[in-house]
């Protein structure tokens, strides 16, 4: 049995979240009563599955044979030389569909089947979660509807085509700001109306309980693998783990196994956009305040009246005005450190990885790389030696070629 299944079977330590999904003062359920029965049903199915050997074996087999995990932990020598730290890349970009997200969708699709539901819905920003959901829906023969902001359907036309090829229906959302948060609102509305036969396959560790905890558990294999791989490779745990944070599933996935290792520093890098001071960013922890959004209490970008403020980031996958409640709690408890990375810093790291390692990262993951570059000198000074930093390379950059090409001005004029 893999590390993933073993860890899933172990009893949760200290009961965070509590039985109602509270991570300290964050999390919980801020939802219409109409959804409570479905959330309870999901919670029961998920808890049963997590102690069911058959479910865990099926999940592990899918992750291994279909998704291609465990993903490699790769020692990026040339990038490390530039960084002044030993950078170990957790290659989630090599997973089927090109990102860590496949772990979550396979877990939730399996649960959907167990609950006897025939239809899944999802929200998507850049389209990555939509593509992953459409992929799992094709594999499990589920009807699939993906809500996507109208603005994003135009920005990400290729991913719209991918979802349609996989048999999904893509619904452009024309309400509000016509981006990810509005796609999430629309998916919630669909779920309220169709909850009997439909599972809402949320794409990140956010939303009402049990989603934050459940999604984390489906992706926590990332950190479990990386922890063991780092021990095997270096004989020790890393000094730090770095990940980008939008909703925060890839970061929780890699953090979770390291949380008890208090000597390992955990860094979450948020999308600083044009700079937190400009107001044009997506850094909910660094630049937001506590509030309720999309069913959970967490850090939110909002005005004084509690109206959500639109986020900005060059990375569509980080362009969300909230964050998973467990991150809010890890921030408050001081166990993890969160800092913003600007578009400019992320794109510099993006280019550096391309040129030194021949790996085109997702722009999301480039935020984690940029963050590692920022903390390396401080860590080296503090430790008096070259630090070892595990960076979650959460996704590949194929989807970002157009954005990056425009950013670097390397596209031929038509």
């Amino acid at each position, binding site marked *: 049995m893999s590390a993933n299944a073993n860890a899933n079977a172990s009893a949760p330590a200290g009961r965070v979240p509590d039985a109602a999904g509270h991570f300290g003062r964050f999390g919980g359920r801020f939802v219409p*009563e109409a959804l409570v029965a479905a959330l309870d049903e999901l919670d029961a199915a998920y808890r049963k599955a997590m102690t069911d050997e058959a479910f865990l074996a099926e999940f592990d087999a899918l992750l291994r044979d279909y998704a291609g995990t465990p993903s490699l932990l790769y020692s990026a020598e040339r990038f490390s030389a530039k960084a002044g730290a030993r950078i170990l890349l957790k290659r989630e970009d090599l997973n089927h569909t090109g990102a860590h997200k496949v772990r979550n969708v396979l877990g939730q699709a399996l649960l959907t089947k167990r609950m006897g539901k025939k239809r899944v819905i999802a929200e998507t920003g850049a389209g990555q979660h939509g593509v992953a959901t459409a992929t799992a829906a094709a594999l499990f023969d589920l009807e699939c509807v993906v809500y996507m902001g109208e603005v994003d359907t135009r920005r990400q036309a290729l991913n719209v085509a991918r979802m349609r090829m996989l048999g999904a229906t893509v619904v452009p959302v024309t309400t509000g700001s016509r981006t990810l948060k509005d796609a999430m609102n629309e998916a919630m509305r669909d779920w309220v109306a169709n909850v009997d036969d439909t599972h809402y396959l949320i794409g990140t560790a956010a939303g009402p309980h049990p989603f934050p905890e459940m999604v984390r558990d489906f992706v926590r294999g990332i950190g479990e693998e990386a922890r063991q791989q780092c021990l095997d490779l270096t004989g020790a745990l890393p000094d730090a783990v770095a990940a980008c944070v939008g909703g925060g599933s890839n970061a929780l996935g890699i953090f979770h196994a390291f949380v008890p290792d208090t000597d390992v520093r955990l860094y979450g890098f948020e999308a600083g956009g044009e700079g937190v001071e400009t107001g044009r960013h997506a850094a909910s922890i660094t630049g937001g305040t506590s509030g309720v959004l999309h069913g959970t209490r967490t850090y939110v970008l909002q005005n004084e009246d509690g109206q*959500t403020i639109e986020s900005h980031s060059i990375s569509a996958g980080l362009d969300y005005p909230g964050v998973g409640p467990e991150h809010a709690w890890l921030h408050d408890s001081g166990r993890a450190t969160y800092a913003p990375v600007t578009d400019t810093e992320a794109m510099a790291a993006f280019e550096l990885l391309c040129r030194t390692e021949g790996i085109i990262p997702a722009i999301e993951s480039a935020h984690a790389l940029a963050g590692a570059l920022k903390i390396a000198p401080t860590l080296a000074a503090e430790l008096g030696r070259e630090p070892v930093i595990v960076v979650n390379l959460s996704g590949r950059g194929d989807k970002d070629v157009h954005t990056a090409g425009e950013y670097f001005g390397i596209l031929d004029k038509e």
Partner: protein
Amino acid sequence: MSRIGVAFDKARADGRAVLVGCMPAGFPTVEGSIAAMTAMVEAGVDVIEMEIPYSDPVMDGPVIQKASDIALASGVRTADTLRIVEAVAATGAPVVTMTYWNPIEQYGVDAFARDLAAAGGTGLITPDLIPDEADEWLAASDAYGLDRTFLVSPSSTDARLKMTAEHCRGFVYATAIMGVTGARAETSDAAPILVSRTREVTDLPVGVGLGVGTGAQAGTVAGYADGVIVGSALIRCLLDAPDQATGLAALRALSAELAEGVRTPIR
């Protein structure tokens, strides 16, 4: 007893249901929304449900979303909504506030309860706050004598129905159909069942919302519920009108039709 309770008692004595009319605060402007809610009361709406506009209203359909967006774009603030409550309450009709939770949390739960009570509001309807998460609101509403209306749904278990109703004061809001707000051609078969299930666990009046748009539908719902809650159809009168005067005339006409409907319950 709360003023809403009095309104329900009076209607019950008259052998009819209470008509609750919903309108977003600040739609299309602060003054415009006061004029609209006043017109509704004058045309026969018994209770005004004033919705605080919110950027992410997940329980609302396209009509209320659009009206909320217009209100927010016009610059309405939470403090303005209290001014609207005060102005509309001056008509004598009870004004209950419907709100998603985040605006209240940001204003401060205790401060909002204090200011709502001072403005003459009767209480809150909370579509995304369930009693499980409501400790602060339970305390504040007790402290300032405000009503609490939580929602019950056809999918609520018996245990949750009982628990939710026990935390309500004033009336219980039964969401007639599984889905968001908005007028529909047919009202729901699930609604009468939900109302009777709710009555088994509480003596509070039960209002039915989601989907009612005509006098005939109001009459049908009045046949089994204590209150008929209408939102989108009323709001559409203003959204579809070329100017304010036409909109208010349509709003009065529909309010009067609905008021007639709740007085002719179809049993």
